[in-house]
């Protein structure tokens, strides 16, 4: 591979949109004279993830970050838009051709107590992708599982145990070993540490970094925790009510936020260093995603909002640090 390819996009997402039909059953709709109701979890989301980097998506509840993760790994079908993996269109409906592509990406889930089948032994859990893809046979599988357990900091003796014999952090290690077993290039990590205690979170985050260095992995990290995202990511996308409001280089996002929502999120992070920075309470709450505000969805909470923000949905525009979808991008410095 040439250098150019090495840094090219591994995953490319274009105009990704997902609507959920949340209508009442047909009979109720007829009787109550109601139409169908839709919830737009994601609207027109576009971004790309480069090889070897960690791209993070942050957002609060209702921002649709997990929906994006699920669409990328094929757990949900997009209502519109395209996902390309290494230049190839991901079309989960077609089936046959996806097998080769599927082996190249994996997912780590939020809740290590739900992501491991309680009736399976660790050996079978970790080997599931190997068996499904038919990568190895018989004793080779056992050897590979032992090796993977060692890689994530567990011992080969753990292979015979059941998940309930492990703590939350150890379970997440098992889940990581499973994700690594098909030798993927890309791993979607959906809130991988939000169910864990901080001391264990540090172990898992460090492990994820080590694995990235060792195997040249590319991560999509989904999180609501800005501190975790800052620690892990190269580039960050900020989601608000299903739309990408800002994408920026990680280090710079925290210094020069371009979108007022990003700025607001940063101000809300508790000040652990006791630097005297006062956490600023934010105005209002996240609106109901079934009935989002017109124009820019953030306008009712935004200190910079003007008439145009209620009338027109802002398109992403280039900023010094990346891009932001705001009519007044770049003016957040003037926020009080």
């Amino acid at each position, binding site marked *: 591979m040439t250098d150019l390819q090495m840094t090219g996009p591994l995953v490319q997402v274009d105009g990704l949109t997902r609507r959920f039909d949340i209508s009442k059953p047909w009979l109720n709709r007829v009787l109550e004279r109601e139409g169908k109701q839709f919830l737009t979890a994601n609207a027109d989301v576009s971004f790309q993830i480069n090889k070897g980097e960690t791209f993070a998506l942050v957002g609060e509840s209702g921002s649709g970050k997990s929906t994006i993760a699920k669409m990328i790994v*094929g*757990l949900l079908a997009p209502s519109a838009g395209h996902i390309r993996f290494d230049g190839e269109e991901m079309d989960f409906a077609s089936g046959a051709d996806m097998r080769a592509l*599927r082996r190249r990406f994996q997912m780590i*889930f*939020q809740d290590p107590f*739900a*992501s491991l089948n*309680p009736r399976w032994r660790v050996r079978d859990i970790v080997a599931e*992708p190997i068996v499904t*893809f038919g990568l190895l046979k018989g004793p080779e599988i056992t050897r590979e599982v032992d090796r993977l357990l060692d890689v994530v900091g567990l011992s080969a003796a753990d292979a015979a145990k059941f998940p309930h014999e492990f703590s939350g952090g150890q379970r997440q290690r098992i889940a990581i070993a499973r994700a690594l077993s098909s030798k993927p290039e890309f791993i979607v990590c959906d809130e991988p540490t939000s169910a864990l205690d901080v001391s264990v979170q540090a172990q898992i985050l460090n492990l994820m970094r080590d694995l990235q260095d060792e195997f040249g992995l590319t991560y999509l990290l989904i999180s609501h925790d800005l501190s975790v995202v800052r620690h892990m990511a190269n580039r960050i996308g900020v989601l608000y009510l299903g739309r990408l409001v800002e994408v920026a280089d990680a280090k710079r996002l925290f210094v020069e936020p371009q979108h007022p929502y990003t700025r607001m999120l940063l101000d809300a992070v508790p000040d652990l260093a006791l630097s005297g920075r006062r956490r600023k309470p934010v105005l209002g709450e996240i609106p109901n995603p079934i009935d989002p505000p017109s124009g820019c969805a953030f306008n009712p909470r935004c200190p910079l909002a003007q008439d145009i923000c209620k009338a027109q949905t802002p398109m992403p525009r280039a900023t010094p640090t990346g891009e932001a979808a705001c009519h007044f991008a770049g003016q957040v410095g003037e926020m009080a």
Partner: protein
Amino acid sequence: MTTDTQSRFARIWDSDIMWSFRHSPVAIVAGFVVALIALAAVFAPWLAPTNPYDPSQLNLMDGFTAPMEPNAFTGNSYILGTDNQGRDVLSTILYGTRISLFVGLSAVLFAMVLGITLGLIAGYRGGWVDGLLMRIADVQLSFPSILIALLIFGVARGLIPPAYRETMAIWVLIVAIGLSDWVQFARVVRGATMVEKSKEYVQAARVVGAHPAKILIRHILPNVMGPVLVIGTIGLALAIIAEATLSFLGVGVPPTQPSLGTLIRIGQQYLFSGEWWILLFPSIALLALALSVNLLGDWLRDALNPRLR
């Protein structure tokens, strides 16, 4: 904490479920009764004093012998007396329980396999498949299950040529009871499947593209078996009673192979003429069996329910 050095038996003995069993007097008694009846039924050919199915061993002169009393004509004495044909009541109960248990177990097994399969498919697929299956279940639930069993039994007998009716009767009975009982299993399994399906371990399997059948059988099925065992146990009691009811009504097993229900039907004809034992002892056997199985089911439900622990 279990260790590898412990034997399999020790681990099972120490498990939560066994601990709960050891601390529930009702469960212990019920388990003991069920085990006793089951063993007696299985070993009936060796335990029973006579073989009630063998006409050569029967002596009509022995008919209506009261328990523990010598027969007026032959002088033979039977612990539980004899029935109208001179069959030893104890032996007929042992053989009858055998048939009752066989029909009950087979019917529940049939209902279980059918209910689990349809429940898994309905819960996992959702959509119109789920809608269709559950509406069928709703319709069936609005009729008493004994009525459904009678209907299926009647239709089946109409379809089977008369020469085979005797031999096929027992299988028809099993299918009829099973078909009237699958809904319970399907509903519970469907609900549990919908819960399990949304869990992340199933999503992890879907991410690697595991086949839906494999996900259902290897992932979801083992995790929905808890509630299935509970309704299976309670369903067994119901199936035994359903079999007895059908046999009592005269549409069950043929009189040449009497089950507990058949025995009770024969017995009730003689209750008011003074031969009470022909009715009483099979009834006690049926009651003890159904009650114990039911109590075991109740205990199992509580033991498997983490909220009540």
